[in-house]
């Protein structure tokens, strides 16, 4: 007859119960997201009233932002458009990486697999099969989603850091194979002729739609049972399993979704470039960028990856063409962030000011 919580770790201080309260979207984020800090439930009525006006404020902010983005041709020129498209696919990459690492506990350095395969799918479909650019777009998501199944099945055997490097290894295999293939253009890759005639504003709107769609997907998924299962796995995998959560299946679904999402981001990138090369497409730098963006912006939050992507793009524009300096700064900042404020910028806002834009986000438990 023990009085111990499942999933509680002696000497760890975490002890959070798996699965948060469903629909806990109210409140300013101080109470419901930090069950291990408060001993009493947040005051009911006052909290709700605060919650409703806060929710309205949030909705307003999001609506304004989306409206601004949609109206871009009115107020912004090609420079702004290009930056926003850049921001979109970096943000999409970050959102997907965050979904894996921040919510499913799957830290991967192998997402570039889907960037490469996604990009090549688009390239082959357009160049070798004459498929239109936009149908090819959808195809990349399907191909990568399907690919994610065996890749996930294989790499899930590894845990922690070994999973991270293992996924990188799989991506390397593809890089080497694709780079050695005549059909795929060997080391010089493929040029997508069709993409040159695509209207840049169409690309822009697709980019925005992609980003908004992804954020919406993540938010709704997290509020669903699947999302709770995901977070339960992240927080305490063994406990979640003992409670009947199909750990492997949930992780695989998350992996497939992330693969498809990353592929779409890659397709967007490829359409814009518009060529694809194996070394660039399958480069570890994508994972470096994704992990840094998410860590700096705020792991395990919805707005975190967006903030991180913004920082990344700004830094890239400021530090100009010097890729090395850019990466040094990013690497150093993410190390410092991880040590000093592991919840990132979004975490800073959340803890110091109590602000959160998408309050379903459960941050990883603090020690």
């Amino acid at each position, binding site marked *: *007859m*023990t*009085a*111990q*919580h499942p999933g*509680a*770790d*002696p*000497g*760890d*201080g*975490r*002890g*959070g*119960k798996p699965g948060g309260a469903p629909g806990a979207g109210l409140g300013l984020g101080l109470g419901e997201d930090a069950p*291990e800090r408060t001993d009493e439930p947040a005051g009911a009525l006052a909290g709700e009233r605060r919650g409703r006006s806060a929710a309205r404020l949030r909705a307003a902010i999001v609506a304004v932002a989306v409206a601004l983005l949609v109206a871009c041709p009115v107020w912004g020129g090609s420079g702004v458009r290009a930056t926003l498209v850049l921001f979109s696919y970096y943000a999409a990459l970050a959102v997907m990486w965050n979904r894996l690492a921040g919510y499913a506990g799957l830290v991967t350095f192998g997402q570039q697999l889907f960037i490469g395969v996604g990009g090549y799918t688009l390239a082959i479909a357009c160049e070798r099969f004459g498929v239109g650019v936009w149908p090819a777009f959808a195809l990349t998501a399907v191909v990568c989603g399907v690919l994610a199944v065996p890749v996930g099945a294989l790499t899930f055997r590894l845990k922690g850091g070994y999973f991270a490097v293992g996924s990188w290894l799989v991506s390397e295999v593809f890089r080497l194979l694709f780079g050695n293939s005549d059909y795929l253009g060997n080391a010089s890759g493929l040029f997508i002729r069709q993409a040159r005639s695509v209207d840049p504003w169409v690309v822009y709107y697709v980019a925005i739609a992609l980003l908004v769609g992804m954020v919406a997907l993540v938010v709704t998924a997290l509020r669903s049972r699947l999302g709770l299962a995901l977070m339960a796995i992240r927080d305490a995998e063994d406990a979640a399993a003992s409670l009947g959560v199909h750990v492997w299946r949930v992780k695989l679904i998350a992996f497939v979704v992330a693969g498809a999402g990353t592929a779409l981001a890659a397709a967007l990138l490829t359409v814009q470039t518009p060529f694809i090369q194996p070394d660039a497409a399958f480069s570890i730098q994508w994972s470096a960028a994704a992990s840094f963006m998410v860590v700096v912006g705020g792991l395990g939050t919805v707005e975190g990856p967006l903030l991180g992507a913004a920082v990344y793009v700004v830094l890239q524009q400021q530090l100009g063409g010097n890729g090395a300096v850019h990466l040094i700064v990013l690497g150093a900042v993410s190390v410092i962030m991880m040590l000093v404020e592991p919840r990132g910028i979004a975490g800073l806002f959340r803890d110091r000011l109590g602000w959160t834009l998408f309050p379903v986000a459960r941050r990883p438990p603090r020690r």
Partner: protein
Amino acid sequence: MAEPLLRVDGLTARYGQLQAVRGVSFEVDAGAALAVIGENGAGKTTLFHSICGLHGAASGAVVFDGEPLRGVPAHAIVRRGIALVPEGRRIFPSLSVDENLRVAEDQHARDRRGSARPRRWTRDRVYELFPDLRAAARRGGHQISGGQQQMLAIGRALLSEPRLLVLDEVSLGLSPAVVKILYQALTAIRAEGMTLVFVEQDVRKSMAFSDHLVCLHKGTVRLAGRSQAQSLDEVRRAYFG
């Protein structure tokens, strides 16, 4: 009246979200033996972990030989003279029996460099105390029986030259023959002046072997006093709350 060797004062500690130890206080004089009893989940292990520095206590004081222990890391507490024989024995599986002992011995040798105090415990003495271990000296830590593991855990703790030996669950899961050997050894250890704090599931045995006892229930002290002065009924009531 001499200062007690160990004084625990209002100790409170959490185990995850739960308050596992609430306001526990007791004293142990040098050379005495204190039995801590209580059912599973009563907080005994958390209490010991807090005293030995493996677990952060939320509030309260632990004073050993006049020095406060709150905030002192576990490895430093060993240096001060408290050794814990943990629940589950926690033998190092990839080390042999002899190496398990040597780990403690090596570290103590490091810690006491330059000190003039003679060693009281050596590996040889541990093997004398537990002849079963000598035969198993080369076997892997995970390859020996539960009883041998307990002997090894006690021997290991002795090699840190403690003044206070804390044992979490002396006889749990062990056969009566082994338990007899263990208590014979503990008697010999006590005869050398060792102070003991121990958990023993067999309440009668714990009362017979100790000078004082403390009964925990849901983290608080329900009964405390001289072991000889308690009636079995009172103890049973305190045990079950």
